[in-house]
């Protein structure tokens, strides 16, 4: 499978097809048993996760994965200092003295309309706000490739629309792989679509064409799809 810079590709398939596993292998959480992974020309197959991130990858998690015992602001600060070696290794300067860093965090929070929740613990946010923060943490570092794992899972219809707005508004030069079960979101946001079945690619290409593929309809889309 290959995707172009700036391409927005959906990855769909029944449960157990291997979608999240694909993300784990691409991001380095699970080792690849065979094959290669190349990112913008660099072979990352044997690189540790944090080094792939440094090469411009970012991901969100299916189950919200925030820092539960920290404030909203500290969550963002951790994302911002993640790739700044000088800062994150500093032990003998208080964090409060990093005015620029803290200001950037506050600016980002304001942009995402979470400014007022800056000092709240993330566990106090609504589920929808937490899912938004999932995406926020990932895009903080301005990645070139973003892996979104079911960003709208568990969201109400209104929250889903808001999340789709956020994703649509992300930089157009950011390549995106989007695991989703909500077909409306997929057809709304994505240029191309890949269908996985039992760990293999079943069909790939223009969403409308893939939708029309009888094999795909049989294993996944079925009658729930309105044509």
């Amino acid at each position, binding site marked *: 499978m290959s995707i172009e810079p700036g391409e927005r590709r959906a990855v769909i398939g029944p449960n157990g097809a291997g979608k*999240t596993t694909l993300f*784990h292998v691409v*991001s*380095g*959480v699970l080792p690849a048993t065979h094959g290669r992974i190349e990112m913008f020309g660099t072979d990352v197959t044997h690189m*540790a*996760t*944090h080094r792939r*991130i*440094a090469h411009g990858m*970012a*991901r969100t*998690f299916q*189950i919200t*994965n*925030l*820092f*539960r*015992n*920290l*404030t909203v*602001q*500290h969550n963002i*600060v*951790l*994302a911002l*200092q*993640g*790739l700044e070696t000088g*800062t*994150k*290794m*500093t*032990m*003998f*300067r*208080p*964090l*409060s003295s*990093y005015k620029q860093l803290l200001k950037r965090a506050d600016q980002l929070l304001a942009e995402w309309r979470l400014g007022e929740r*800056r*000092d*709240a*613990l993330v566990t106090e946010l609504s589920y929808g706000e937490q899912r938004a923060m999932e995406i926020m*943490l*990932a895009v903080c*570092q301005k990645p070139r490739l973003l892996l979104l794992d079911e960003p709208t899972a568990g969201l109400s219809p209104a929250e889903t629309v808001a999340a789709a707005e956020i994703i649509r508004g992300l930089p157009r030069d950011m390549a995106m792989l989007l695991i989703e079960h909500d077909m409306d979101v997929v057809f709304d946001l994505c240029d191309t679509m890949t269908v996985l079945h039992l760990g293999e690619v079943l069909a790939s290409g223009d969403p409308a064409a893939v939708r029309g593929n009888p094999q795909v309809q049989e294993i996944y889309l079925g009658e729930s799809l309105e044509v």
Partner: protein
Amino acid sequence: MNKVRILLGAIAFCVVLIVLSRALSSYYLVLATRILIFAIFAMSLDLMVGYLGLSSLGHAAFFGTSGYATGLLALKVSQNLAVDLGVAIIFTFGVALLFAALALRARLVYFLMLTLALSQVIWGIAFEWRALTGGDDGMPGIPRPTVFGFHLTDSPSFFLFAGGLFMISAGILLLIVNSPFGLTLRGIRDSRSRMSALGYNVWLHQYIAILLSSIFAGLAGSLLAYQNGIVSPTQLGVVSSAEALLMVILGGAGTMVGPFVGSIVVVLLEYLVSQHTERWETALGIVYILVVIGAPKGIYPPMKAAVLRLFRRSKPLTGAELEEVRVPQWQPAEEQL
């Protein structure tokens, strides 16, 4: 946490130390010194347990190794405090380089078991190597050090010496946990997978944190050797590790102040129990169970929350205060991918 308040707090603490050094009898000064020494030990462990989320039952490995190293140096090599203390801590750091590398090969409860096993190996070496360490007879006769011309043989001066080192240790540890590195550790505690996904080399940060922790545990161990005048395998044993862990949990993991409170409670408890029975370990075990079931967050966070509410009334707590009074359970939850 502005500078004026920190300075005032430090001065106030100094005053308290000086007053206590005059007011308490020799017997109670020994107890108070023991509290300060174990507070340093417990605070060093809190860096691992409360901030990094790595529970360890092997911290006495650093505590005892440094004690033995200090004892050997003071008895056989040199009377120079800087040499005895410095070399002992450096040696302990060397042990930590290996200890941490081995222990970090495991996660969660397996990490805990590895730390226990590794510290027992060190305990076994001290116990068996009678020629070097005196075995279970211990190594008696360790002379008190001389600092700036003062020979610290009496209780008040040694108490102040320990107090000074306590303040320096607490100051450095508080600086570390409030730095970007400290925030990184707390991030790792809350979600290793998230941290990797943000570009952090999780293993490296954990390794460095354990090394830092070993330095202060070593300092505490050296102080105990000086105070007692004798080192025995007990200082390396699992009961020492367990006492420190209890101080951290009972006081409140992840706060740095909690372990200090924990040290006061546990040392005094040990003193009280020893007046009536020899079964201190039994009592320790019972208290352990009660604390983990009844007050797993410790006693300091709820106390601080109550005090803050009293003085703040309607004004909301700051982010840092919220994080502190709602510190996590001492055992991190199993992570999901």
